[in-house]
């Protein structure tokens, strides 16, 4: 099973430029989380800080009890073996073939025989749809293929935490959908904790259990998917609808005059660039491909969300309740008022009639 990642008060600057400050969140064990944010808000920096590639000035990142911000280099290398990271454009070794790239972690960290390595590598490459491409060099394949090869390499050591940096960039919507399905299937199979950093709404609305958003150096929020998807915060709704009206501008700062002018344009009939409010609302989450085991994270998440339900906004509460099946309602509500039930840590255990 995956392990929990706890981030406490993380602050990172480059020189005088602050990237984000005081970010606190918990990636729940075995669940899929997405970190959204406009370009240039430090999503990649956040991801790199989790694995200790960048060292934030303040705060802690606890992985299995080890703080990757302040621990020694040696401990860091140990902790990193629990991670599988898919970089933005694959970060494959240019001098090695795809096969050798994917086999690299196995050859470095295990004493497997060559035919065992071969079996694992071919299986993972088949999984990401790269069967038969083993002999090619990274320079000879497309960006999407490099990305998938990077994912295969991140998976060979069966990581407990998988971090994906913009898995969708450079992929068409269909391939993005396949990749989303692949990540959900992976979660069902190995129950790893997954964090996806992206600005793709398609992924954000169908894949994760939890969504967070970074904007202008702050964590706008992090919580169950329903919270952000139903949020009325201007930043969040602008981002999800992809329109120009709102606090996010083309450059980092957007002044009041610009906002007023854009508003005037829209009122005069100019298109705001967005997809409209009908693209909002909660799409059903992806299920694992039929035939695979059920995602254990789903049940764990329901238990967890029910304990914090009373702290969530009303719209999110409604959305969560609406997503429950009859069986869930019987399990959690059992005829009693929702708030009372929600307070218990394991409501399912004792209250069933």
């Amino acid at each position, binding site marked *: 099973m995956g392990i929990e990642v706890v981030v406490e008060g993380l602050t990172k600057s480059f020189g005088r430029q602050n*990237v984000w400050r005081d970010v606190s969140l918990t990636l729940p064990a075995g669940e899929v989380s997405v970190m959204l944010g*406009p*370009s240039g808000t430090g999503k990649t920096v956040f991801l790199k800080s989790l694995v200790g590639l960048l060292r934030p000035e303040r705060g802690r990142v606890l992985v299995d009890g080890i703080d990757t911000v302040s621990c020694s280099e040696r401990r860091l290398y140990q902790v990193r073996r629990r991670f599988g990271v898919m970089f933005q454009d694959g970060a494959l070794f240019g001098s090695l073939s795809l096969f050798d790239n994917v086999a690299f972690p196995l050859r470095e960290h295990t004493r497997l025989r060559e035919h065992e390595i071969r079996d694992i590598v071919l299986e993972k490459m088949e999984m990401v749809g790269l069967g038969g491409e083993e002999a090619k060099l990274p320079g000879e394949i497309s960006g999407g293929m490099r990305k998938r090869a990077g994912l295969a390499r991140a998976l060979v050591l069966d990581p407990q935490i998988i971090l994906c940096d913009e898995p969708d960039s450079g992929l068409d919507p269909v391939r993005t959908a396949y990749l989303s399905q692949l990540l959900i299937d992976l979660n069902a199979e190995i129950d790893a904790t997954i964090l996806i950093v992206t600005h793709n709404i398609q992924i954000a609305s169908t894949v994760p259990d939890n969504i967070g958003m970074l904007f202008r150096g702050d964590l706008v929020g992090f919580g169950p998917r329903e919270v952000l998807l139903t949020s009325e915060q201007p930043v969040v709704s602008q981002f999800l609808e992809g329109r120009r009206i709102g606090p996010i501008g083309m450059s980092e700062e957007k002044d009041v005059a*610009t906002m007023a002018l854009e508003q005037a344009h829209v009122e005069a009939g100019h298109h705001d660039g967005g997809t409209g409010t009908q693209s909002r609302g909660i799409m059903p989450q992806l299920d694992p491909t039929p035939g695979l085991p059920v995602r254990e994270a789903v049940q764990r998440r329901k238990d967890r969300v029910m304990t914090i339900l009373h702290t969530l906004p009303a719209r999110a509460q409604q959305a969560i309740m609406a997503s429950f099946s009859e069986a869930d309602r019987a399990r959690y509500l059992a005829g009693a008022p929702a708030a009372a039930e929600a307070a218990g840590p394991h409501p399912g255990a004792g209250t069933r009639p």
Partner: protein
Amino acid sequence: MTAEQRAVPGPPPAPSGPSAPALEPLAPLTVPGLGALRQIGQFFALAITVLRMTFKRPFQFREFVEQFWFIASVTILPTALISIPFGAVIALQVGSLLQQFSAQSFTGAGSVVAVVQQASPLIVSLTIAGAGGSAICADLGARKIREELDAMQVMGVSPIQRLVVPRVLAATCVAVLLNGLTSVVGVLGGYFLNVYVQHGTPGAYLSSFAALAQLPDLYISEIKALIFGFLAGVIAAHRGLNPRPGPKGVGDAVNESVVIAFLMLFIVNVVLTAIYLQVVPAKGA
């Protein structure tokens, strides 16, 4: 009004690409010269880490052999081609000087000391830094900006142990071995010039070899080559591991690595020579 101009509706270029392009890990520079001190500190830290990791298992033997072969293949011919005219020009200079004292028979002695003690380790290290070091720096720099090194670190493999140690050791070993070749070729170049151009006598040239030169000259020559090779390797690796972002950053890093290595080699050469002359008295003194 600038706000109006900025807000003119139109198809803006999609803000795609890396999500943090403008963010660059630069330390805050408050005092002039602090940046340089930091670089020097990083350089020594890297040198010590390389030494420490040399003895850490598993040693990357395959990478070492490949790099050794690569550095040797790009440096052997240039060093030989440089050392022939270099030996010749020393013989020419020393020969014409000594001729004025009617001591032409000591030409061999002078050129052997000059070639073995000074010219040979410098020629070797210049070609190692220029041909081998620039390649090392470009290779590491390209890997760095394409996030290959990050990926390697995330996979729990230290790029210093995996990539830098074999390269630095290869540069060092090639420098030591090549130094022997360069000394021989340089002395031969001097011999041919003296005998065939200046019409000196072969016997006098050869018999005067031992007049000034002594065995410690060869030792210091090899020690210099060892240190220079190591320095050239570490400088190249240091610049390669810390390039500014983008392809231009790598280009600049290669440029810097060669310039810094050249400067460093001559300074260190002065220090080593001064120490050597104090410790080992000249022959007959």
